[in-house]
C-alpha cells in the first residue's frame, strides 16, 4: 500500500501506476477540456484527481500531440493546456 499521507492530503502513488493510467484518462481529460484550456490545478479539480497525477497525464498527452499549452496570459504562474486547435 501507499506511503505516509503528506500534508497535501494524500500520499503520492507510484509514478508507474499513475503513468499507466494515462491511456484511460485521455477521454476524461479531453472531455474536460472540450470547452477550453485549463491549468493543471483547474483540470485536477474538474476531473477529481490529484494535481501531480494530472500533470503526468497532461505532459504525456502533450508529448504525443493530444494537448498543447497556451500562454499564461494572467501571469498566475500556471500554463493552460487545451486541445490542439481549440484556443483559450
Amino acid at each position: 500500500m501507499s506511503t505516509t499521507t503528506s500534508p497535501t492530503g494524500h500520499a503520492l502513488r507510484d509514478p508507474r501506476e499513475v503513468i499507466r493510467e494515462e491511456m484511460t484518462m485521455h477521454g476524461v481529460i479531453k472531455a474536460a477540456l472540450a470547452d477550453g484550456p485549463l491549468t493543471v490545478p483547474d483540470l485536477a479539480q474538474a476531473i477529481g484527481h490529484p494535481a501531480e497525477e494530472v500533470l503526468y497525464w497532461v505532459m504525456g498527452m502533450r508529448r504525443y500531440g493530444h494537448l498543447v499549452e497556451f500562454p499564461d496570459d494572467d501571469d498566475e504562474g500556471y500554463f493552460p493546456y487545451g486541445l490542439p486547435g481549440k484556443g483559450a
Partner: protein
Amino acid sequence: MDYDVLVIGSGIGGMESSIKLGDMGYKVLLVEKEASVGGRMILLSKVFPTLDCASCISGPKMSSTINHPNITTKTYSEVTGIKRGADGRFTATVKEKSTFVDWAACTGCSDCQMACTVAVPDEFNSDLAARRAAYIAFPQAVPKKAVLDREGTSPCIGACPAGIKAHGYVSLVRSGKDEEAFQLVLDATPLVGTLGRACYAPCESECTRTKLEGPVPIRLIKRFAADQHYAANGATPSGPAVEVAAPNGKKVAVVGSGPAGLTAAWQLARQGYQVKVFEKRSQPGGFLRHAIPSYRLPHEVVDADIANLTSIGVQIECDAKIDDLAALKAEGYDAVVVATGTQNATPMDVPNEDAAGSVNGLDFLADVANDKAPDLTGKRVVVVGGGNVAMDAARVSLRLGAADVKVVYRRTRAEMPAHHVEADDAEAEGAQFEFLVTPLEVLAADGTVTGVRLQKMQLGAPDASGRRSPEPVPGAETTVDCDLVISTIGMSPDATLYENVVTVGRGQRITVDPHTLQTEVPYLFAAGDVATGATDITRAIGAGRRAAHMVDRWVNDQPMTGFTALDDRIDTVTHDQVLSRQTAFGHRNPIKGAVDLAALPRDFHEIESPLSEAEARSGAGSCLDCGVCSECQECVHACPADAIRMDKRDVETEVEVGAVVVSTGYKLFAADNKPEYGWGRYANVITGMQMDRLLAPTRPFNTVLRPGDGKVPERIAYISCTGSRDAQVGNPLCSKVCCMYSIKQNQLIMGALPLADVTMHYMDMRAAGKRYDEFYEQAKDMGAQYIRGRVSKVTEKENGDLVLRYEDTEGTGEIVEAEYDLVVLAVGIQPNRDVERLFTDEQLGLDEYFYVAEPSEDVDPGVTDIPGVFVAGTASGAKDIVDTIVHAGAAVAQVAAHLERAAVTQEAEVLA
C-alpha cells in the same frame, strides 16, 4: 581475432575511447545497453563551466561513433560474459536484445510511438513524464530507431491456448479503441462474441492483478468489444470484416462447424483459400449452439460470429453428413480438415439405460437448442456426472420446469471436473448435489424411468490424473426417485468418419502429429476435440489456427513450421517480476460481471450482464501491463515502413578481442535513501538530473514547472551533497560534480525564469579548476544565493510548498526555516556495480568504494588489475566531463601500448 578492442558503454568516455582507437586504425566493437549511444551526457542541458549545449557537443561524437569505419556499434546489447584466454586475448559474449523492429527499414518517424497504447515512465526523462512501450529513446538518439519494450509475454497471453492477445485488446479498450480490440481478437478467430461469454478465461486465472485485489475482467472486456462491434455494424455484415487475400485457386474442405472447424475455415479463407464447411446438423456451430445453453451463449451471438465467416466467402453447408473423406479429395479439395469434435456420449452401461426417460446429456442439450425441449414441469431429474455438461443439463432442466434436479457424482466436489463457477451457479439456481455415488441401475416400470439405484463410494488412492479414485463401499446402496435420468459421464469422437482412412487412437480419437495436426494421410488434417478428446473452446480455437497454418504450409510445399502464435512466444513474465516494478500499489475495486442467478429459473434469458462503458474502461485500466508491450498491433498497423518484427528474438554471439575498455559509467544516488528530504513523498522535491531534464531543449514539460501542480516555480532551493560525503548512506566520497552542476543549473534557471529566486544550501563549495570558481562567482553576481549549512529536514505544506530547516552557520547560528516552491537535491555519483558481472573466470578488481580499481592510477591511469583490461571515465571514480575525456585518452594510450606490445611479442616469436 574479430576486433582489436571491445569497449563497453557508450557514454562520453566510451565514445571518446572508441573514436580515438578507431582513428589509430584499431578495429573497435562498442557495446551499449541502451538503444542509442550517448550515455548521460546527451541528456544534460548544458555543460559547465562553458554553458555549451550538451547535445551540440555530444551529437557530433555520437555521429562519429556510429559512422566511424573502424567502429562497429551494437546498441541495445549487453556483454554477458568475458573470458581471458591463455594467449591474453578475450572471448566476450554479446547479447543483442531484440528491438522487435527492423532497424534497416525503420525511418525513426515516430508513428509507432504515436499509435502505442501502453504508457510507462520515461527513464530518459528521469521518470518525470511518460513514454510509450514503442519508443525512440530520445529525439537526438543515434541511431534514431524505434524499440518495442517487451519484457516478456504477458501472463494472460501466455495462458491462452488460442493464442489470443488478451493484453492487447485490454489495452485497446483502455484507450477507447473498441473496434481495434474486436479486430485484434478477430485476427485469431471469428468467434469474438462467443469467447466473450463462454470462455473459461484462463487469462484471468493468470492475471497478475489477481495477486492484488482480483483479476482484470478480461473476458467481459472482450464481450464489450464484440457487443460494440455488432451493435455498430449489425450482426450480419454485408461485407468482409477483415482484409482477405486474393483467391489462390486452392480449395479446402472442413468437416464440422464447431470452434476448431470455424476457426480453421476463417484463417484459410483469409489467406485466399476457397473453403467449404460441411455440417451434419441443420445449423452450424457445433457445441457452441448445440451444447452450450443459450442463457450462457445466446444463439444470435453464435450467428453473428458465424456471419464473420460467411461475409468473407466461406460456404457452410448444413445437413451435409460426410461419410467419405477420400471422396472430398477426389472432388478437388486440396486438403481436408476434420473437426467433428466429440459427438458420442459415453454410456453408463447399467441396466435400463435405454428406458423412456433416460437420455444422454449431449442429445438432451441438442434437442433443447433445436426447439425440441421436453416439458419437465414438475418433473424430478437426476443428472449423472460432474462435468460442465452435467451443470448445463441440470440448469437447463430447471429452466424447463423441473421441480427437483439432483446431480450425482462419484467423487467429491473438490474433484469435480466442472468449472467451479458453473457448479456454484448451478447450486445457486437450485440444483442439488449428491457426492460419492455412482449409478448401478436405472429403475424403470413399464419401460419408463422411475428412479436410479446408486452405489455409495469412497475415495481411494490418486489415479493417473492425480485425483483420488472412487471405490465402492461394499453393501452401501441408495435409490433416488426421478422421472428423467440424464447421463453426462463422458464423450468421445465418432470414429466412423475416419476409421477406414487413418489410425484411430485412444478414446476413438483421430491420430495426428501434435505439432502439425497432420494425419498419416498427407492431405488430411484434424483439429480440436476429435484429435485431443474433450477440452474447451480456447483449445479448439488454437488447434483450428494451427491446422489452418499447417494446411497452408503443406499445400504450398513449405516446411511445417512457423506457427508463431503459439510456438514462438517469448518467455512469460512472472508475477513477481511485474509486482517488483512498483514500490506500492493503489487499491482498485475489482470490476466483476453481474450474473442474474435466481433460484429455479424458468426462462433462457442471458444471465450475465455486459459491462457498461465506464466499467469496461475502468476494468481495462486496472491492467498492470505485465509484458510492457501489450502486443495490440497498433504499431504494426501504423508503421509506414512495415518495420515492426514481433518475431525478432535476442541474438547471442561470441567475439574474440585483444583488449577491453570498461566505460560503464556511474549510477546516481537514489534520493529516497535520504527520507528526511522527502523525494518520492513530496511531489515538488526533485533531483539534479531531473532538473537538468527540465532545463534541456528536449525537456519533458513546456518549461521549468514544478511537478506537483505545473506551477512555474519562483523560489527554488538546492540541497548539495545529497548522498555524497555522507558515510550514513555508505558514500563518504565527494562526487566532484554536484556543486558545479548545481551552479550551472542555478544560472540556467535564472535565464529561463528571470523572476525566480535560486538558493543553494551547501556544505563546502568545491569549484576547483580552470574557470570553475569564476563560474561560481558569476552565478552569485547573477543573483543566486549560497547558504552554508546542511539542511536537516524538508517538510511539505498543504499547498505543496516546501519548508527547509537548516542551521545558519554563517549568520546567527540559529536553526532557520525557509520556504520554497521547488527543492532540487544535488544527488551524488555512485559506482556502477554491474561491472562485477562482466568477467566470468576472474574478478575485475574494485577499490574499497567499489569503483573499478586502477592499482597504479598515479603512474598508469586506466590500467586495471587484469592485463589487457582498461577503464575509462567514471567507472573508476567520479569525474566531470572534461576529466572523463582526459581519462579516456589515457586509457586509449594504454590500450594502444598493450596491443602494440602484444604484436611486437608475437612478431618476435614468429621470427625466433
